Each structure stands twice: as structure tokens, then as C-alpha cells.
């Protein structure tokens, strides 16, 4: 649920000095940030670690926060994207992408396969294999339903650049799933 903008602005201003107000922001945005962190890390411990870092950083930077005209969540997502990037810099993914997608059934259309829960993890694992910026844009668009403009604000890019990232990301996913299907035939 989205906070009314005027109320959110007031709450954010109060949260610069008022722990209760910051707690209210946390209550509202925890779910989104945790889900985003989980979507990107696919690991409960890592998602908890990232989420904690995001809110701690936000808390410490709160007195200096200046509204940019975008929702407060943009700022939180921005911190999240950086924290996730740091996370991956420190810990390389342990699971093999190929292993995750190698059992895909190549005989059925890709779009049909991905709606099955058994396939979902493999599809999102394919997203994990995309370049960093594409991963972030894809996760914010398809995992969080954010508007392209807000993703641009979060990533420091134009809306057009975000469109390009998502588009290329989807083509990448299709190729990866297609490639895996071919690979599956040879197994």
C-alpha cells in the first residue's frame, strides 16, 4: 500500500529527529526492501543482512535527507541497490547458473514454462546471470512493479536508459533459457 504523498513527506521530515516516525517508515517499507533484497540475493541470510544495512544507513543519513521530488522509497531502493552490489562484490554467487537452469524442458514455449513454480526459480536464476545493471532494472520492474521513471531515479539513469536495460535484460533471459534448453537436449 502506498502512503499518501503529503503524509509521507510529513513523516519523513519528522523522522529526521523522531524515532517513532522513523519506526513508522520502517514498518511501511520493510516488506518492499526485504523483498527486493531477497529477489536479488535469493538467500534469506543475505536478504536480512542487506535489509539491516539499508535501514541502518538510512537512519544514520536521515538528518541529511533532502526530498528529491520522488517517493522516499526511491532513496531506500537506491541504498539497497548499492548494498546489494557491495554484497555481491564481497561474496560471489556460489550456485552455478547452468546448474540452476539445465533441467528446463526445451519442448515447451519459454513463456509457458516460467509460470510454473518449478520453473520460476530457474527463470529468476537466469536473471541473476545478467549484467549488474540489467539485473537491478529487471528486479525493480518485474519484481517490484516500479515505474520506469522511479527506477531511473534509483539507478541515476534516464527513463530511456532504464527501458533499454529492461529490454536487453529480457532478451538476455530469453536467450539464456533458450540456450539452456538446447543444452538440456544434449544432456
Amino acid at each position: 500500500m502506498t502512503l499518501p504523498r503529503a503524509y509521507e513527506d510529513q513523516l519523513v521530515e519528522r523522522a529526521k529527529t523522531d524515532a517513532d516516525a522513523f519506526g513508522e517508515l520502517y514498518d511501511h517499507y520493510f516488506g518492499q526492501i526485504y523483498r527486493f533484497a531477497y529477489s536479488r540475493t535469493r538467500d534469506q541470510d543475505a536478504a536480512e543482512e542487506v535489509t539491516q544495512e539499508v535501514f541502518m544507513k538510512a537512519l544514520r543519513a536521515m538528518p541529511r535527507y533532502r526530498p528529491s521530488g520522488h517517493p522516499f522509497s526511491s532513496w531506500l531502493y537506491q541504498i539497497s541497490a548499492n548494498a546489494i552490489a557491495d554484497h555481491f562484490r564481497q561474496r560471489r554467487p556460489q550456485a552455478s547458473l547452468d546448474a540452476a537452469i539445465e533441467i528446463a524442458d526445451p519442448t515447451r514455449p519459454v513463456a509457458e514454462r516460467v509460470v510454473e513454480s518449478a520453473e520460476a526459480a530457474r527463470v529468476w536464476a537466469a536473471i541473476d546471470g545478467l549484467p549488474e545493471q540489467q539485473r537491478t532494472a529487471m528486479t525493480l520492474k518485474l519484481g517490484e512493479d516500479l515505474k520506469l521513471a522511479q527506477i531511473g531515479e534509483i539507478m541515476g539513469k534516464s527513463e530511456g536508459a532504464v527501458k533499454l536495460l529492461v529490454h536487453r535484460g529480457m532478451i538476455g533471459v530469453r536467450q539464456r533459457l533458450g540456450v539452456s534448453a538446447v543444452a538440456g537436449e544434449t544432456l
Partner: protein
Amino acid sequence: MSERRDRFDAELSELFGEDPDLLRLAQAVRESRPDPDLDPRFPPILRARLMAEARTVLAPRHTLQPRGAPRRLAIWGSFGAAAALAAAVVVVVVALTGGTAPPGRLAVVASNVSHRQAVDPHQAITLSFNEPLSPQSEAAVVSALKIQPATQVTVAWQSAETLVVTPIHPLAADTDYQVTIPKAAIQNAGGQTLASNVTIEFGTQAVATPGPTASPVPALEPATVGPAAGDGLAFWGPDDAPGVTDSSAGQPAPIQTPNASPAFTATPQPSPAGSPAASPLNATPSPSNAAATAPTPAPVEGAVYFPADQAPVALSGLPSTAVAVSPDGLYVALAVSQADGTSAIVVENPDGSSASRVWPSESSAGALVTALSWDGTNRIVFVTHDGIHAVDLDDRSSQLYQFPVGGSASGVVLAAGGQAAFLPAADVAGQAGPGATASPSASFTSPSGAASPTTSPASATPAAPYVPTAEDGWLVTLPTNGGQVPAPTRLAGSVSGVVTFSAAGDEVAWVDVSGSTSTVLEAPVSDPTTITPVSGAPAEGIGELALDAHGATIAYALDPGGIEVETASGTVLGTTPDESSSLAFSTDGTRLAFVAAGSLDVAQVQTASAPPGTTSLCEDADQVLTRFVGSQVAHDQAGMATLTSPGAPPAGTLTPSSIERGYVIGSSCAAASATSGPTLTASARLIVDPTPTSPGQITDETVVLGETDGGWLVTGLTVPPLHTQGSGPHVLSVSATPPVAGAVNPESVVTVTFDSDLEASSVGATSLWLETGDGQTLVLVSPPTYDPDTREATLIVSGSLPAGTEVVVGTSLADIDGGHPAAGATYPVGG
């Protein structure tokens, strides 16, 4: 999460409308997003951690010293993780007695502000009782509730147990408030009353949050000057025009093509001494540089600056790692990158013409130059992997400081003017001289003279090698005349590597990370052990620092966040929201250049304004005054002594030991006379916050500063005894705006800000006036006016304020509760 999946995302259709298969796949991917695994214990645990942290983080940043830890009458409740939020609410217990109800029951009163010390001035105050009050009592409480300082509020019952008190106008900043309800007004349905009055005490933030009519924290509103690569280096070029290196992100148009911008891979000829303009570079452009001589300007990849109302000027056709303008403004020096990874130092005319290489010489090996600046003798001081060097316009070079084995140019920061440099520990390690303490005794020796382009590196007298820690930082002073290089001085604290020098090169500032939070320290280059903590500096996330000409204004590049510009005393002058880098102040400190989001931006910066009532004559005195009051609040005996003139009253003895806060109310500057130098007379308020057992106390001291050979020092101090704050209005600040130059009717405007809502009819010429130092009342242009929204009274006089002018607050002034100020309250202003 399923409800999100059900929503149609029109943007996906826009994105993939031309590729139905891709659209279907995108929608399928969206619908397949997994629900995250979540430990239900995690959210409340994290929340508790955040709330515990919030109690220390969300504190006032601009007080001279944080207020004391909140005191409480009694606190109930679990301090377990999930209950940490409750810590923000202090529960006050008072006994209910009387009536016929069973005795001994307690009524609990909770407030969202009780004994909190940084309450938002806009915040509503809530008071909650543990049981409903009688309808009669509800009405009685509304009429009996008092708030001091006198403040217009609305009072309403949110429920039968909870009262909400809302200020009509934002509360005053940095002020202690007391809300009282007489015990007789509180009665429950059974007729029980409280044993004592309800008293809630709290303090407001040091800096007022913008109210409906107050000025908000100013946005810097930078203007984009031109494109810049993310790693571009902002600099100030000739005529103080902003510039940037390696603006490969795009090309400003039109570009003034330099007369010569060849690659410096061929044989250059030495230029005549001191006249690079007359000695164009006689290098042969390499084939790879053919574009540089093409008729059409190539994309600018070197350095470009942007003169006002003129076309941009390209200084070099190749990427540059450093740029500096000579002190006389006649030449520009650039460290131009070579194809082999080394640099050539090139001197050009301000229009980019007559480029001439001055280093390296034909016979010597080059190296990557990471920083350069001009010193006062028209030499270029620069940093390479092996040390700090200098080269003059006759191409004569010398090494000023040699890095030890393991040292490097990484982290070395050169001061403007080439007089000093910051060295990381690795660049001092193993050197004889600087011991493990901050007071090395041995000295370094620079090469004798600078006549030889291949002089030997610095040598040192034998002494115990210095063993550094990674966080040590050192300041080395560089000789300008071939003399000895003094031993470096270790900078205090654990230096993070975020270091900067003022635009004039006379001040150094660094981020000290030795504490639990970062602090920013500033010191004169001439004496880096005389350290001043920068008030109001962000506690963390400082990625870069920049100082104006002499360190009166400081800019922070924050991560996360944008830029914050503050005075050295902590007043926020402006902010930007976007991530930025390469901060650089213009020499006059009125503009800040930086690189952000692919462009070179320049923001106008309000100069580090003098405090209320001072003039430029006493600008330096203001800084000393702020430091002095800060020392008083910090009970820093040594600091007070350092800032006090010999023979002056002993500040350490006169300053009450119990004070917790303080601020300058106003000051008046007087020019030098035949018998004395300039003086600054100031009024400052020292405050003891109230406790559950004692009321708050204040005293308004008078501080006199005089200019001596050692700079501005406190020469007089009068500290009246502390007294209870009491009722009645208090002056928070006085300030004066001098006449506008050239105005037909020049007028000075004096603004007096109060902590209380005043009775407007009491504000007049008999309750508020201006007096000269000899007791003469100044004639006002019109009677004083009062703005209830800002609690400001305004007095206007014709012409400039005479030296020694004081604001006098008469006892006939009244607040809305009928309170009057103490007799004889005067405050210096202007002059």
C-alpha cells in the same frame, strides 16, 4: 504479493509491444516472482535495533555540544527488542489521591516529548492518562494547561485519556519548554485527583525546522556548465572560471580550438625562462594525434574551462590529471597524460595557446603526475610515484620530498600554493625523523638549490625509523626556496584519507575516524596541532571535503546523499540531492564547482556569513567567539585558556560548571580607535537544562574580543550568576542588516527574535528600542513591528548603526500570558 501480480503493468506493453513473445515472457516472469522466505522474528528484531540506534543518531547536530542524556522520573516497560520503540516515550507516574475511590492507585501520564531534547518544533505534544478523565476535568485541563515560554497552542482531547497540544506556530529552536497542568484540574470519574501537578519538560532542536513562514534549508540550485566524465576533475581556471578535466562525456559547443595541442611524444624544446607564452611548444604531433590538428574540433578530452559569457576554452587535447592556474593568472599548468601512462607537465597561456612542456626534460624519465599546484615563486609543485617535486618555468626541477620504499602517490594531497602536502602513513614509513609520536624531532633536508634538473632526493638525518599505523596521516611543509623540509607533523586522530586544503592553502581539514562516529577537524597549516572540531559536520558518509579560501565554509560530498555546505560553525548554507564528486571552491568562496551526473555543475554559495551584527572587520573574531563559547560548553579549560588574552578574566573559573548548552545571541563590532584596536562585544547565552529535581537555569554573558598580535582573543568576560529561566519572553537572537549600497534612503534593519509569542500590542517604542554605547536612544524610522509567525520584532533606523549599538528590551514588553522580561536586558548589535 498476489495482489501485485494481478495488477496490469501498462509499461510492459509499451516496452515489449512490438515483440509479443517477449511481452508474454516478461509478464510470465513478473507473475513468477518468488515470495521471499522470511523469518517472522527478523522484522521486530531489526526494528528494535533501529530504534536503539535512533536514540543516539536522531539528535541535534548544530548545538555546540549535545544536550545531556535525557533524565526521567520513572520508566516502565520492557527494554526487550520489541519494546525499544517505547523508549521514546517517557512515562511519568503521579499518585492519585483524594475522593472516595480506593486509595493507592497510580495514574500514569505518558507524553511523546517528555525529557526529549531534540523535539521537532512542529511536533504536536500528546499527554495520555491511564484512565478516562471526567467530562468536567477534560474542560478544566484545556483551560488550565500552560506552556512556557508562552506559546499559542490548540488543545484538544483525542480520546477521554489522550490530550493533544498543537502549537499555532512552530516552537522556538534550541529552547527548553515546560508544559504544566495543575493537579486540581485533573480528576477521574471517581473523583480522584493527582497528588501533584503534571509537568512535562522537553527541549527543541537546535536549528529550527522550517515553519510556514521560515526560510527552508536552502537548496544550492547548481547550474550545469558543461559535460563531464564521472572521473572528471573540477577546477577553477583563469579569471576564476569553472573548468573540468577529461570531459569525454560530450563536447561543449562551440569550442575554442587551442592554437597548439599536440601529443607530447616528440622532442620538445626548452622554453625561454619565464616566458612560456613566447615559446610555443616545438613538438611534432604524432600520427596518432592527427585529430588534434584537424580543422573541426575533436571531442574535448583534455581540460576545458568556461569563462562567463564566452565560448568554452579547451586547454589541452589530451586527458589531464591535474590543472592549476599560476598565482598571477598568466599561465595554466596541466599534467597531460601520455600514451605510455606517464604525464607531461605543460604550461599554456590562458587561451590554450603557446603550450610548452616543462617536465620531464628530454633526458629524464617521465612519471604519472597525480597532483600539481603553483607555489609563490612561479614554480610548479607536483606529485609522482616517488615523491614531491618542483619545476620552474626554465624547466629546472628538484625533488622536495622522497617517498620511502613502499610509499606511493596514492592519497597524497597537495595544498594550493604548493606550501604543504598531506601524506599517508606509507609515505612517511621508515623515514628517519618522525617518530611514532606527533612530534618528530629530526628534520628532512631538501636538495640544495633547485638549479639542477636532476638533483638528488631528500636525505634525512639518522634517527629511529617511524613505524606507521595505516590510519596515520601526516602534514609536511614544503620549502619554496630550497631550504630544509621540516619533519612532517602527524595529524590528530585516525585519518580516513578524506583530506583537503583551503583554496588559499592555509588551512587543512580531515575526517577523523578514531571515534564511534566520524568527526571533521580543521587546523592551520602553519600549526596543524591547533585543531578545531568542525561543528555540525555529518557523523558519517563523508566522501569528500572542500574548504573555501580560508576554511570558513566547508562542503561535504556525502554517500549516500549529495552535497552539504556549512559554515565552520555548523550553519547549513545549502544542499544538493545528487551524488557528486570533485568539489572545488572558487577563490572567493562564493561558488562551488563539482561533477555530478555527467556534468560540471556550479552552485552559488552564500558566503560564510558573519554572525548577527558583525561586519567583515570582525569576521575572524566571530570564529574565535564561536570556538570560545564551544569551549565553555565543553568545559574545555585548555581551549578557553588558549582563546583568552593574558590578563583577561579567567574564563575557566567564571564559566559555570553545570552548563550544558550555549549560543551567541548577538554581537557588535567596533573599529580601531586611536587608543585601541578593533573589538567585538557579544552576548552569549549559557544554559543548564532542567531536571526532574531542579528547574532550568540560564545566564547571558558578555564576551569582549580584541585583536592582538596573536589574532583575536577574549579580552573581557562577564558572567552573571545563573538564574531560573522563569516566565516572560527571552531574546533568542538579534541581527542587523546594513543599508543597501546606493539606496536612496539607506536604512539599517534590526531583527530581534523571541522565544515566546508576544502580546502584539505591547511591542512599541517604549518596550523595544536601540541605544548607542553612550546611552543615546536612536530614532526609529517607524515604530517597531512584530510578526507573530516568526516571533520577530523589527526596528528600522536611517543610515548605518553606530558602533556599540544595543537592543534594549523594556519590562513593558509582554508575552501572551502576561509575562515580562527581566529588567535591563540589553544585547549588542551591529556597529
